[in-house]
Every structure is written in C-alpha cells, then in structure tokens.
C-alpha cells in the first residue's frame, strides 16, 4: 500500500525549546493510524505542522502528500491538500445551524450569493455518511458533544478530506458515543478515508488502530503494527523522558491531614450526561507535597476548580479542612478558609495584566490590611515588598505592569499573591509551565521552603519528571477517577503512565 502522507525530518523549535526533533512519520492510504505519546511529547505540534497552522518556513523538513512536497502556509492550504484536523475543542459556532456550520468559510456561492438549496442537499448527504439523522437547520447549541463531533466529521467530508486527523476525539464522549464514532470511522475507512487518531487511551488505540506511531520528547520512537504491540510494550515506548533535570532535595515529614476530599462527584456543565469527576477521595497533609498526575483532559484542573467552587454542576461530596467541612459554593468562601489555588493559565486566570505588581499581589488579601475601612497602603507596600524580596521577584519597581515581566516573574507574582493570604493549603496547577529552567528551580526551592513552614502543597503537573522529582505522594487521575496512588519510593514513570492511560 502506498503512503498518502510522509513527514520527513520535521524539526520545530519554539524559543528555548525544541518541540519536534527530526520526526519521521508516514501514513498509508486507507489506514487508521494512532499517534500516541505522553503530555508534551509533540503530538499536537506535529499535527499543527501538518495542517498548516505553523506555516511552511517556521519548521524544517518536508511534508509529502501523495508524493508531492507541500508548502502549506495556512489551514486553508492544508484543507486544499485534503488534510482536515478536528480538534479536541470543537470549533462549531453555537448559534449557527448545522448547515451553516458545515459550509462556514467554504460557502457554495453563485454570483455572489450563497446557494442554500445546494448547501442543504450536500449537508444532508454528508450527515448521512456519518450516520446522523438530523435536520441541517438544527441549531448547533441543541446538539450534544458526540453529535457535534460527527457534524465536524461531516464538515470535513464536504471539504473532500482524504486525511482526517482526530485530536483526542473521545475525551468528552460516553461509551455508546465512542462505539458509534468508531463504527463510523471504520465505515469511512472502508470507503478509502485515511485517519490519524490521537489518543491517550491505550484501550481505544488497540481497538481501532491498524498501526501506531509513538512520539516521546519530540522524537519518533518508532511505528508499529498494532497487532504486534502489547500494552506493556507501548507504555515502555512512551516513557523514557530522560530525568536530566535537577530538583532541589529536601526531606519532608508529613503532619496532620489538611485537606480531605471524599466522594467528590461533579457533572461537566458542557456535557451533562457524563460525570466529569466520579467519586474522588484523597487527603493532603501538612508538610508534604501531593503530586497530581494524569493526562490532559483527565479532570485534574476541573477537580480543584470544583473544590474551589469555580467549576462544575451538581457537585456532591465533602471537602474538609482540618476536620471542618468547607463551604465550596464560591471561591471567596473557600479562599477565606485558607485554601489558595494558583491557576494553570496565569495570563487568563491568574493576573490582571494591565495592573502593576503591587495591585496584583495585594488583590486576594485586601481585607487583611484594613484600617478603619480603608486599605492601609503603607502596610500593603511593606508586605508586598517583603514578598518580592522573599521570592526574589525581579521587577524594577512595584509599579511595574505585570505584562512587562518575564513568565517566571509573573508566576512568582501570582505565587506571592497567594502567600499574602497566608494559606494552609496551596494548590499549584502547572506551577512551572512556560518558564525557564532557572526560574523553575527557584520555584521548586520556594515550594520546599513553604512545606517546611507547614503548608500543605498540592501540585498538579503534566511533567512527569517534575511529579517524580517533587512529590512526596502521587495521585494519578484518569477520566475523572483516581486511578492509583503511589508513594515517592514506589513511583516510576512506567507506573504513572500505566495508571494514567489505563494500561494496567
């Protein structure tokens, strides 16, 4: 069988990071090819290179489709070359109907006007091809996530896609919807469609894929026939990020139980028929770092956002802080009890970028410094400057706008904001994402210092070396459930990946 796609020696760099390093990836016509790898292995970057999101010239190496070297400069170019990517976050416009969505940006135009009759006929046909029996004039907002996904596939079919890339298509689907999706993919395959299937879930990979390519640390670990692989073999291929990074060492002794979560169950407001978090139980202790591992979309951030009262519907279960039940209705009540949560996306959810360092750092603890109802600005400045020194934040003055600081210093500003609230439990969601090695090491050192002061730290991280290097205990989350708990001594990369992917 001939190769429909060959990607040769692909290399893609971001400032300071090599995301893809000499990657070779080839896909045969008419196969379902799974692309697997740990968080940050480079799967998404590779697909963005393929689809034209990163235009020709920003990477090196060749993309060969049907034997021709392609120079894609945009997604539109990629679609002309019959490559269509369906992302995990669906891109349909809620308040447009199915037909409008299917032809968005690709309208059937005659003499400057859209031919809606023709559009409806073609939309109907494409919907039939994905076994969807809905009226093309249905508003998208009225469709479930599973159906929307099929509409996306129908949309791809109208673009005459020959190579369909599905990025984590099953992450928000129920069991039946997954079964249905797989059936449709098999049907499409029978009609000659080629499909690249990106997934974390090994069970699904073995169920649907003909061949599997494993990426690790931006490099190809090899391409294998699915029938020749076992779960154990696949896991050992996915692992293997070298533990070159250094971590400061410190001995912790776990103390009293700080946060105790029991029977925590939450419904995703976007996907009401699926439990985003299902009966989660764990404790965090004073004087230790609890690492939360898991793959993207496993529900780690959602777990802690729901504990904070900032996410989810029908939250049930109990959160206790030092034995006292915490009211998790809204962030303000939880924060006032002594829980601090450093968000994973510091720019969108952690900082007010147009404000200065002082205002950002003081924001969560304003009521602690009141003097007859007014903010005691001298105390405020003193505490902020003390924290700046404590965390060695590099900023010319406290008046500097935070948008002008480096990523590492911005992160320390957010950390400083939470330290000023004097938290008992500090939840750090991806604390070192997007910051340089030196700043990472500083943040690790600060974490150890905080633990010594008796704070209970919970660290969510997608970096396995970080989880292994910093945590005293590790909780692995998979699909909204606790998949396993490991102590520092027994934890290895293989075990964590096995829990996280369900390969055990």
């Amino acid at each position, binding site marked *: 069988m001939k190769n429909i796609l060959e990607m040769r020696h692909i290399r893609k760099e971001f400032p300071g990071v090599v995301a893809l390093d000499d990657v070779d990836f080839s896909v045969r016509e008419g196969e379902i090819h799974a692309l697997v790898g740990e968080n940050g292995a480079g799967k998404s970057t590779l697909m963005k290179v393929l689809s034209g999101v990163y235009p020709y010239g920003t990477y090196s190496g060749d993309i060969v489709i049907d034997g021709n070297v392609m120079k894609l400069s945009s997604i539109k170019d990629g679609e002309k070359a019959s490559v269509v990517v369906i992302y995990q976050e669906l891109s349909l416009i809620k308040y447009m109907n199915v037909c409008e969505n299917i032809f968005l940006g690709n309208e059937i135009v005659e003499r400057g006007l859209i031919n809606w009759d023709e559009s409806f006929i073609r939309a109907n046909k494409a919907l039939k091809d994905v076994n969807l029996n809905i009226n093309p004039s249905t508003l998208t907002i009225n469709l479930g996530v599973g159906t929307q996904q099929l509409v996306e596939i129908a949309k791809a079919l109208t673009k005459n896609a020959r190579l369909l890339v599905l990025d984590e298509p099953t992450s928000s689907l129920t069991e039946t919807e997954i079964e249905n999706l797989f059936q449709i993919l098999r049907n499409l395959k029978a009609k000659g469609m080629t499909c690249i299937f990106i997934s974390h879930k090994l069970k699904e990979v073995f169920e649907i894929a003909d061949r599997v390519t494993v990426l690790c640390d931006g490099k190809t670990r090899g391409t294998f026939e699915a029938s020749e692989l076992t779960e154990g073999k696949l896991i050992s291929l996915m692992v293997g990020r070298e533990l070159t990074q250094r971590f400061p060492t410190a001995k912790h002794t776990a103390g009293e139980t700080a946060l105790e979560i029991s029977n925590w169950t939450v419904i995703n407001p976007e996907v009401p028929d699926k439990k985003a978090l299902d009966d989660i139980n764990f404790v965090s202790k004073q004087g230790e770092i609890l690492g939360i591992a898991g793959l993207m979309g496993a529900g780690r951030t959602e777990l802690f956002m729901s504990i904070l009262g900032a996410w989810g519907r029908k939250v049930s279960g109990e959160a206790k802080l030092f034995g006292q039940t915490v009211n998790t209705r809204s962030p303000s009540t939880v924060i006032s009890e002594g829980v601090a949560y450093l968000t994973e996306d510091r720019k969108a959810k*952690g900082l007010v970028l*147009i404000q200065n360092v002082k205002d950002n750092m003081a924001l969560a603890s304003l*009521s602690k410094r009141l003097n007859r109802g*007014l903010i005691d600005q001298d105390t405020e400045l003193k505490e902020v400057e003390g924290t700046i020194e404590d965390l060695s934040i590099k900023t010319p003055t406290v008046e500097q706008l935070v948008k002008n600081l480096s990523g590492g210093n911005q992160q320390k500003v957010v950390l400083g904001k939470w330290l000023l609230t004097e938290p008992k439990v500090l939840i750090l969601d991806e604390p070192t994402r997007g910051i340089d090695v030196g700043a990472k090491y500083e943040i690790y050192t600060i974490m150890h210092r905080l633990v010594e002061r008796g704070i209970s730290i919970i660290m969510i991280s997608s970096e396995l070396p970080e989880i292994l290097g910093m945590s005293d205990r590790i909780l692995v989350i998979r699909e909204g459930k606790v998949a396993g708990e490991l102590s520092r001594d027994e934890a290895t990369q293989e075990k964590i990946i096995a829990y996280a992917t369900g390969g055990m």
Partner: protein
Amino acid sequence: MADKTLAAGQSFTAVLKETIRTNMRQYTMIAALLIIWVIFSSLTNGLFLTPRNLSNLFLQMVTIGIMTSSMVMVMVACHIDLSIGSLCGTLGACVAFMMVNMGLSPFIAIPITFVLGLCVGAWHGYWVAFRGVPGFIVTLASMIAFKGVTLLVTNGKTIGEFPPFFKSIGQGYIPRLFTSEDAAFHDLTLIIFAAALLAFLVSNIRRRNRRISNGFVVLPMSLEITKMAVVSAGIIAVCFILASWRGIPYAMIVLGCTVSIFIVITTKTPFGRHVYATGGNLEAAKLSGINTKKTLFTIFLLQGALVSIAAVVFTARLNAATVSAGTLFELDTIAACIIGGTSTTGGIGTVFGAIIGALVMSSLDNGMSLMNVPIMWQYMVKGAILLFAVWVDLAIRQK
C-alpha cells in the same frame, strides 16, 4: 533610616523626565486642558480667562462632573450606563413635583430623591450582576423608559419656581463672613482655600516622612518641592478665580465632596480595587476570591446615588424641571470619562482623569459659546475632539 530616593545618583532632570514619563497620561490631560484654555482666551481677547467666566464654567461642569465619578467605575468594570441622562431628568422632575405640587420641604424632597436614585441603581445592579444582562441593554431600557416617567411626572409641562434654599444649591454662593459685597475678595473662600492648601502641604510632608521611615522609595527632595509648588500654584489659581468673583458656589462644594469620596473609594478601599480587578480580568478576579456580582451591583447602586445628586443640583440651577432636562447627559459623561483616559475595554480609568475630561468638555462648550460659534459647529467640534483624544491616547499607549 536612610533617605532612599527613586534616583540615587541621577540628575534632577533625569528624575523629572522619568516621573513625567510614568505619569504621562495625567500630565497630557492637564496640558491639553491648559492648551484649550490658552487658545480660547486668545480667541476671546481674554474674556475666557476672566474670573466671572471661569466661575461660570465650573458651575456648568458640576452636573456632568458629579456623574463622571461613578461612570468611571461603571466603565472600568467593562459596562456602560446609558440611562443617566433620562434618569437625571426623571429624578429632577420628581424632586420638583414633590416641592411644587406636593408642597414638601426640600429637606424631605431631596432625601426621597436620593433614595429613588438608589432604588434605580439597585434595579440596574440586580439585572446586570445577578441576571447577567449586559449593562448596555439594562440601561438602554431605562433610558427609554425614564423618558416616559419624566413625561408622566411633569405631565408634559415645566415645573418651576423652587424655594430659595433649593435654588441656592444650584445657583448660590457661600456667604461672606466679614467683608461687604463690593470687596475685591471673598473672604470665606480665601479661608477655605488657605485651609485646603495647608492640609495638602501638611499631609504631603507627613506622608513623605512616613514613607521614608518605612524605608520606601520616595521622590528626591528637589522634585517633591517642585511637585508641591505646582499643585499649590494650581490651588491658589482656582482660589483667586473664585474669590475674585462671588466665592465658591454651593454646587462646587457638592462636586468637591462627591469627587473626594469617589477618589477615596477607588484608590483606598478593597471595593475600589475589586472594581479594577473585575474590569481588568473578570476570571482572575473571581478566582482571587472577589465576589464580582456584589461588586457590579454596588457600582450601579453608587451610580444611582450620584445621578440623584446631580439631578438635584441641575434642577436647582435651572430653577425648573422640564421634559427635556438631562437629554444627552449620558453621552457627555461618557465622553468626559474617555477623554479623561478611561479605557472602553475596562480595567483602566481614574476619577481625577474623568473630572479633567469633564472640564475639557465644558471648556469647549463654554469657549465656543463665548465666541458665538453656532451650535451645529459646536457639536461637530466636540465629536471631532472626542475621536482625536482617543486616537492620541491609543497612539501614546502603543509606544
């Protein structure tokens, strides 16, 4: 502790440049205002800068000035209030109706009007904060509806002739203490301003000393003195203008109080910081434990309160409540905020800046009227200046 200054080893001019650069926005606004004044006074052969005219100008800007203070907060929080013109008319009609038609004393009518303003503010706040309807829509609805309420209350007629006490709120001046009517200077005005000047100097020096003893960075002494001298000169100039005409108008005292209170609210209270954080990054504000709904509600509540005060002052100045009173006030107020540096995308803006913006707007009105510029040209010039101001602001910020 050692006197840490901003610029150890830097020259005076270097520090001055740095200070001007970091406070660019405020200085450019004040500079723009002064330029406008210079232009008008040369075009009117000095008529513009006479105490009589400037005193008038201050009186004209009071209504808009009062409402800008809370409008700044609404805009910083990423909303807009279109209803204040209509509401100002309605509340003016209410206070007039209570005094003239019902014979109530101003001392009863004014507090009732204030409560009515609060109620409308709470109504807006409820829909915006707790029902998630954008402020633009909620207040657009009120803008239309209150036109009707004004018609209902006034019955389409002008309600007029108020008790002397009420009239003096909009037209009166504080009394003289010792001197007679024809003295060159108004003595109580001089006393009040002297006290204000003294308070400013003392608080500034005490603040500086406190900061030095806390080990904070302060301006070098030379620059501190320059700053105090400039501000003092400004205070003395305003004092001279008012004292050599009829003294301080009561309306300006009202404006002074509301502005001072709102400057304190926006800069020194947790609520004020919450407003800026809510407008700057709603998500980050929520996750920092801020009750953003309560914050939004309070903003609209305060807006209602200030509109009622503005309505009283405006009605008193006109000495009548009319059907068309308050028309376009919302747009003048929004324009004043924007000229004063309030961002239309939220998170940025100061009460002080907005007051300067209001002064710019009323200077344009006043100056062009003095020059007998036809009203159609006045509108066009004002529109052009608004656009120009925003463009200059964006251009400066992009640098």
